[in-house]
């Protein structure tokens, strides 16, 4: 059921990648994303793919689980690929019928775009697989802390985010429970047309909202009761520290960046 949603789910094993500092991971993933967008030659994509596979191996997450995250977007990938294929009209014509013209460049272009999307999703999934939501927000807070200079409430935003993240699994569990209870009263959620199905969700959504508001209320009270306020000098329970792993990862990443830039530019015609 709702537990099958894998996007953004932490995968609890011990590995080099899991132990990296979340700030480093965030930065590296951002660089990775920029890289995927800038890379243009098919050879460079092969390098990116190889790097991604190496990273998956280093994080000790089964390939099957990583690939699951692609399942959700495979439709978008295929759809954009087809659109790209149809609308790319310049270049050597491979096949044409009526108004459909397929060119060699179009084929290459759609393959590249599809690869780009897949590599993006796989890379970011790897981040959420190896980093708990809590340490992700911690990392984000730390990275955004320069914004405090312009009076941006970094800490408040990050506490809101971590509470929201923390509540996702709780609410999912709640959805499961309520659905079961309504099913026991004969409700069915997978029959009929779209309109009927949406209506069938009311018995789930109403109790869900009621309980979400109740929880929010209780949480606010609990925070108040413990005199919580987001003062600037809060200390933290878990301090983020850099280790040799982060250094190794950054160096490996730098090598990778140099490599893809080189491959992308055909080694500047050096040979």
């Amino acid at each position, binding site marked *: 059921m709702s537990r099958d949603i894998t996007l953004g789910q932490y995968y609890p094993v011990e590995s080099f990648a899991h132990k990296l500092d979340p700030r480093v991971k965030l930065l590296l993933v951002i660089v990775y994303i920029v890289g995927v967008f800038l890379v243009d030659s098919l050879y460079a994509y092969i390098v990116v793919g190889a790097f991604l596979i190496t990273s998956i191996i280093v994080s000790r997450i089964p390939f099957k*689980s990583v690939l699951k995250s692609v399942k959700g977007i495979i439709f978008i990938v295929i759809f954009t690929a087809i659109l790209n294929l149809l609308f790319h009209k310049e270049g050597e014509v491979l096949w044409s019928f009526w108004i459909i013209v397929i060119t060699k460049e179009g084929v290459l272009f759609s393959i590249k775009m599809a690869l780009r999307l897949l590599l993006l999703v796989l890379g970011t999934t790897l981040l959420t697989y190896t980093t708990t939501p809590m340490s992700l927000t911690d990392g984000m807070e730390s990275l955004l802390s320069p914004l405090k200079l312009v009076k941006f409430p970094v800490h408040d935003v990050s506490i809101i985010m971590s509470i929201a993240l923390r509540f996702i699994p709780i609410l999912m569990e709640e959805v499961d*429970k*309520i659905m*079961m*209870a309504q*099913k026991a*009263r004969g*409700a*069915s959620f997978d029959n009929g047309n779209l309109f009927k199905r949406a209506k069938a969700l009311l018995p789930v959504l109403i109790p869900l909202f009621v309980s979400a508001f109740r929880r929010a209320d209780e949480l606010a009270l609990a925070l108040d009761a413990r005199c919580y306020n987001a003062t600037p000098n809060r200390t933290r329970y878990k301090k983020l520290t850099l280790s040799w792993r982060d250094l190794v990862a950054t160096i490996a990443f730098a090598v990778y960046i140099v490599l893809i830039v080189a491959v992308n530019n055909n080694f500047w015609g050096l040979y």
Partner: protein
Amino acid sequence: MSIEIKNLSFVYGAKSAYEKRALEDVSFTIKDGETLGIIGTTGSGKSTLIQHLNALIRVTNGSIVIDDIDLSQKRINLQLLRSKIGMLFQYPEYQLFEDTVEADVAFGPKNFGYKKEDIDYMVRQAIELVGLDYYEVKDKSPFELSGGQKRRVAIAGIIASRPSILVLDEPTAGLDPIGKREILDLVKRLKDSFVKTIIMISHNMDEIAEYCDHVIVLHEGKLIYDTTPEELFSDKEKLVGTGLSLPHTVNIARLLSEKGVEINESCLDVDSLVNAIEKAVPNE
């Protein structure tokens, strides 16, 4: 309707990092007309077990046969099954959703395809059975009732569709002592008049001792006892290591007999304890 459970096992999140074995090779039979108590510590698999009974969790390993419905079959008539087996979840008041109490209680019967006139009658009967004033509550919003009243409305919503087996997951959790007693008396009344078989999960040994005639104990997903309350609570050794305790009445009787008061009965409720003490220590 009798229920036969054979070699039932269940694993949550099979083949993932979150794999969790919740039931392991559980077999037992529930006869028609029984009041079955299911006890076990937190996480022992009680809820998982009962959710199998109306196919909210499908049988993956082992078999469950309810009368002539074989739940391990791929295709079963879910509506029929779920109308026969009413299930009250933990904290059922959080599942109320309609504008009025009447509409909420009617949700089940409507889904099970009863006729409009029948539904009106069933709803009214169910609301009265749980001890609420039909005309007073029918047009109220379920959200403006008290906790105990909400729970009654939730129970009415289950029994309105006339199940022959009623399954209750910790029906008294979170209620005050009076509310607890009221719900239990309601369950007893239902048993005498309306539903045939009752299956009840409880953490309260006193409730189990007083109301059940058959009890099973789950421990870490395994069935460790399948017996009567008298048997189970007759021997303190049986509960060692399960994290469970004796009912208060049984405990008092034990302590008294250790001090030399001659009590031989099992004393599963207050009345029988009082009787036993009066017999052992005659009034001058």
